[in-house]
């Protein structure tokens, strides 16, 4: 556990916190990136206004080089950025809002915030835990009703302060929208640099908002298509190490990797099962590609497809009982579903164009895909039986959707055309309106969004 939820009470606010054991290691070295987001589309004009003043602190203290009063403002900024990015809310502050006192945290002056047209106000505090950590409290109020809607508290390692902010934003988002949380989650992707004909591609990880960015591989071998394991401890991906195409499992804590399976054939397009015990991958044998399933601990792979042609990719349904994949057995790339033993293979995409990179939503209700047609790639969604096809993006090349943990937002990568063409990470919600670029230190592709952290 990197982040320990605690019950909040007035007593906890004002007195020394009980001592909590903290056994987790410090997070990896970070290279925070400044948000630089681009918004496309038109956001709703009636978004709920939420005032978010800087979190209060009983007295400015320095913990592990971080000042609690500075963190109070920074945490408010991350909460506001999260809620803004959701597209549903219009956060105000912390800049431009007056500071609040510790006493106000549990007794807001509602009249003040009503005056700012804020329907909701977020209050909170940051203080030293007394054991080298921080305690962060977070409260959401309805300014009209003068009532408390949600409260959360965490004892954290100082380096995890952004996670406390994301957890707070998640609590607010869930309470107001009725949707499951998604901000406190991570993304694995491929950082790109160098000329188009010889791109350097490195495995990299970051928080869902681009924070806590970290490069994993050094770029000497091409890295492609990473996926976090459900517990975030491992990343399965393709590496061209030693000029071969092979699927590796990278252990994030150990910094080591191992082959998923020993084969002289190319293996690629890996995916985890929802419980993290199985891995899907594709293997090309003599030019023919099929999909296989293997235990994450190794063993004998099970071949799931056997039709001539290219059967590739694959994504488990959230209940782990079905797999959606792509195949050109009909003459062009289309999307199919099958049971996890390979039985009952059914084509589900029938519209114009070619359909690829299917990804089953964590909610189970939709499958995201890349549709190719008219020389363009677009990201869209359909039901698991192929109905209700909706395209969410409209650019030259938008490819490889990945779902937010709550199944409401999709990240993908966008490539621009031409000799200087580059790739970048984007996200869009299911309305197709709230389209934003994700901040990454270099160009980016192949995003893979993991589950909400515990």
């Amino acid at each position, binding site marked *: 556990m990197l982040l320990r939820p605690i019950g909040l009470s007035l007593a906890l606010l004002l007195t020394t916190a009980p001592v909590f054991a903290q056994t987790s290691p410090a997070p990896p070295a970070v290279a925070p990136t400044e948000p630089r987001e681009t918004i496309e589309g038109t956001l709703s004009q009636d978004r709920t206004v939420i005032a978010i003043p800087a979190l209060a602190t009983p007295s400015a203290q320095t913990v592990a080089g971080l000042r609690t009063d500075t963190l109070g403002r920074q945490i408010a900024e991350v909460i506001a950025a999260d809620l803004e990015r959701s597209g549903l809310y219009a956060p105000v502050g912390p800049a431009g809002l007056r500071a609040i006192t510790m006493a106000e945290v549990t007794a807001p002056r509602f009249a003040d915030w009503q005056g700012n047209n804020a329907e909701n106000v977020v209050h909170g505090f940051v203080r030293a835990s007394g054991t080298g950590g921080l305690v962060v409290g977070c409260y959401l109020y309805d300014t009209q009703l003068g009532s408390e809607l949600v409260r959360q508290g965490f004892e954290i390692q100082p380096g995890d302060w952004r996670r406390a902010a994301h957890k707070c934003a998640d609590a607010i988002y869930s309470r107001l929208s009725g949707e499951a949380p998604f901000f406190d989650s991570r993304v694995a992707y491929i950082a790109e640099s160098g000329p188009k004909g010889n791109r350097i591609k490195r495995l990299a990880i970051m928080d869902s908002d681009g924070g806590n960015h970290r490069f994993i591989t050094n770029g000497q071998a091409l890295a492609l*298509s990473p996926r976090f394991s459900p517990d975030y401890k491992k990343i399965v991906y393709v590496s061209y190490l030693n000029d071969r195409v092979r699927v590796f499992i990278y252990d994030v804590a150990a910094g080591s990797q191992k082959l998923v399976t020993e084969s002289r054939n190319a293996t690629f*397009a890996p995916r985890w099962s929802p419980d993290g015990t199985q891995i899907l991958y594709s293997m090309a044998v003599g030019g023919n*590609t099929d999909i296989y399933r293997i235990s994450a601990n190794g063993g004998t792979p099970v071949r799931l497809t056997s039709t001539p042609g290219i059967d590739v990719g694959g994504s488990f349904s959230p209940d782990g009982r079905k797999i959606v994949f792509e195949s050109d057995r009909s003459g062009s790339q289309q999307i199919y579903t099958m049971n996890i033993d390979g039985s009952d293979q059914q084509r589900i995409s029938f519209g114009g164009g070619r359909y690829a990179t299917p990804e089953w939503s964590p909610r189970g209700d939709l499958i995201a895909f890349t549709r190719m047609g008219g020389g363009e790639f677009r990201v869209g969604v359909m039901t698991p039986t192929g109905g209700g096809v909706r395209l969410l993006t409209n650019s030259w090349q938008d490819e490889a959707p990945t779902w937010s943990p709550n199944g409401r937002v999709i990240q993908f990568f966008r490539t621009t055309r031409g000799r200087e063409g580059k790739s970048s990470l984007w996200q869009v919600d299911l309305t197709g309106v709230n389209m934003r670029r994700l901040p990454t230190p270099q160009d980016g592709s192949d995003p893979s969004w993991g589950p909400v952290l515990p």
Partner: protein
Amino acid sequence: MTIRKSTAMIAAITMLAVGACAPKAPDTLPPAPEGTGTDTGAGTGTGVVPGSQEDFLASVGLEGDRVFFDYDQYNVDAQDQATLQNQAQWLQRNPAVRVTLEGHADERGTRDYNIALGERRANAAKNYLASLGIDPSRINVISYGKERPAELGSTEAAYAKNRRAVTVVIGQ
């Protein structure tokens, strides 16, 4: 095609070729395209090491190291066959040489599919070389999908150059 000879015959020709250092192509294989010549000069007086990548490129000529494919296709057409026949001649003259066939796709496919498509293309070229008598164990295959375009533009002309299988000498 009437290019198959007995293994013994090819071996004999090959040994002769290696021994002579400046061989003529076996008359059982079609001639090289005009202007590219055979490797009659490559290994003599130019400092080019016989059996090297440089020697191979000098022998097969401009773009003779690669075959091109139609969009989302992997069939080896008549022009590709002529190119691969030239390569086969050189490979028969250099029987200890191993090569890698690199399969590529243009950028109009999704990443994983393009890896599979590049594999198809490289294997199609490998299989044709094998049909000409080249031992398939001498030929590695790797697909780069759309990761290593030869032409960087986003035009039909660039795509046509990128849908390719390239033969690269990796040593003896």
